[in-house]
């Protein structure tokens, strides 16, 4: 590491683990400890992708914690949260996310999701619209043009070449925690889900973020997603891949912050 005196603005946010009891079972979340945030600002909830946990959200939490109250829960079955006996489908995951928000004292929040997390957030917006104020969908799955396990695995492998090698470690740890049976069960639910049918019902301002090198979310699909969202728009980040929350947190924070801070002027046309 070279000396960075006076130059590098490294994220200053600290993190803590929080345990919330939801319907008798404990859900784990990583949360930013805001130093200078005014407590009244809209909370931000980060939703992780398939098989993984809030672990790879840490760089993004660190970037955003100085500005927002940031929470990144582990969905039930993943990370350090309780393990239901079987894999939960997308509806159940959305319901448990809403239940966690309730238990954690978040009446509503902006939701930022990566990959499969976007499917959970779209479902949440349909089932519990009162919980969501804004949506950021980074690398939303599943592209209907590649809705088979083989195509998705092939794209996932191609993506591994764009992610930093350390992310492989995140994946290995998290997959071990959730277990193969749950992972495969969730993959089946992921492939069955039709996010394109729910997007038109997500009636909040929405930002779709695509890494220009993301092999899992081609440009055409990203454009389709933002067109299907009534309040959607698309930002493409050059050089970034599928896992921006881990590999390109600075760029993600830079495009997300102006969106989150926009006034609600253009929300009326959505209702």
């Amino acid at each position: 590491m070279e000396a960075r005196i006076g130059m590098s603005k490294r994220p200053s946010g600290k993190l803590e683990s929080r345990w919330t009891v939801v319907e008798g079972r404990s859900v784990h979340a990583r949360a930013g400890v805001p130093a200078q945030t005014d407590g009244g600002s809209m909370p931000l909830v980060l939703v992780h992708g398939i098989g993984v946990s809030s672990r790879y959200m840490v760089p993004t939490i660190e970037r955003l914690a100085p500005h927002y109250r940031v929470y990144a829960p582990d969905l039930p079955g993943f990370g350090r949260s309780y393990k239901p006996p079987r894999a939960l489908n997308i509806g159940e995951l959305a319901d448990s996310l809403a239940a966690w928000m309730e238990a954690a004292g978040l009446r509503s929040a902006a939701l930022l999701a990566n990959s499969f997390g976007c499917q959970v957030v779209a479902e949440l917006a349909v089932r519990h619209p009162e919980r969501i104020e804004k949506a950021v969908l980074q690398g939303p799955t599943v592209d209907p043009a590649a809705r088979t396990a083989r195509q998705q695995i092939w794209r996932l492998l191609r993506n591994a070449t764009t992610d930093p090698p350390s992310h492989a470690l995140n994946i290995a740890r998290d997959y071990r925690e959730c277990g193969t049976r749950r992972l495969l069960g969730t993959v089946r639910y992921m492939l069955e889900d039709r996010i394109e049918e729910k997007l038109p019902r997500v009636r909040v301002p929405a930002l779709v973020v695509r890494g220009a090198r993301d092999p899992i979310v081609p440009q055409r699909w990203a454009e389709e997603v933002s067109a299907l969202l009534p309040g959607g728009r698309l930002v493409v980040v050059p050089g970034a891949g599928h896992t921006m929350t881990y590999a390109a947190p600075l760029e993600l924070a830079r495009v997300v912050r102006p969106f989150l801070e926009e006034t609600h002027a253009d929300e009326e046309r959505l209702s």
Partner: protein
Amino acid sequence: MARKTRDSVVVITGASSGIGRATALAFAEKGASVVLAARRAEALQEVATECRTLGGRALVAPTDVTDEEDVEELARRAVENFGRIDVWVNNAAVTLFGRFEETPSEVYRRVFETNLFGYIHGARGGFPYFREQGSGVLINVSSVVAGAGQPYTSAYVASKFAIRGLSECLRQELILDGARDIHVCNVMPASMDTLLFQHAANYTGRAPKALNPVYSAEKVAGAIVRCARRPKREVVVGSAGRMLAAQHTLSPGLYERAAARVMDRDHFQDRAAPPTEGNLFVPMPGWTGASGGWKTNGGGSARKALLAGAGVAVPVLLGWRWLRDGRASKNGIVARAASWRPG
């Protein structure tokens, strides 16, 4: 470590015509995302369309570089749309022809507002993002006249000298900061086939033209793209420029006497021109291409003579210096070797 051009975000000021336009197209051709800044929105739209056709992403950001807040907004928009700024090309420039005493003060000042303060605003706009990223390349398009003056364009020349000085100072501050992946490059084109002369303010009574030999804007664009990839402190574009710079270094007195007469004869056409503010205060409609149509101009025999003179003088002077220095250093080595004692 420079990013691949395909993955980089490039902000270019003065992108509506000339070097800026050619640079935008050159980056777009390599798949870069370009942010196009200039005063004329319609001209930028044209360039953006061309960039997209070439396979790049393009964002149009009408900007007046003399306005610091405008330039901050430019940087903000670039980052909001693409998440980063990898290369910032300070390029927007104007020029003014006229004898020093005969040029209006406010027009003179305006040259510095655009050429120098425009670049300062650019550096201030891009640097905070470079610092946060820990990387970035600032490319200041200066001119070979940043190393050698000429008559009738003192405002332009002084602004270009200033830009060169600014670049060097910023580089040194970056050294002190240990910011090893933030670079400042000074690109010095020779006489260019651009619309600079059509856009010029002019109080000489004569219509100016580009000095021969002229080089294409694409040549500078190529040098800028290479600089973004592998940053260099200074790059001269056009061999005539390198030759003149060398001649100026070796015999500045002789250079000044010869250059003054050559410029007086060769920087103008044989026709009268009324006084004009050119595009300094209000952008001119039309005149949007990369080329200024100066390549077809013949003539320039005196300039050729100057170049030929340089061609002879440079090797002679270099040879003389080499002989002199060689002998001196040889003596030095002999003397040091003789006085050396082990131990």
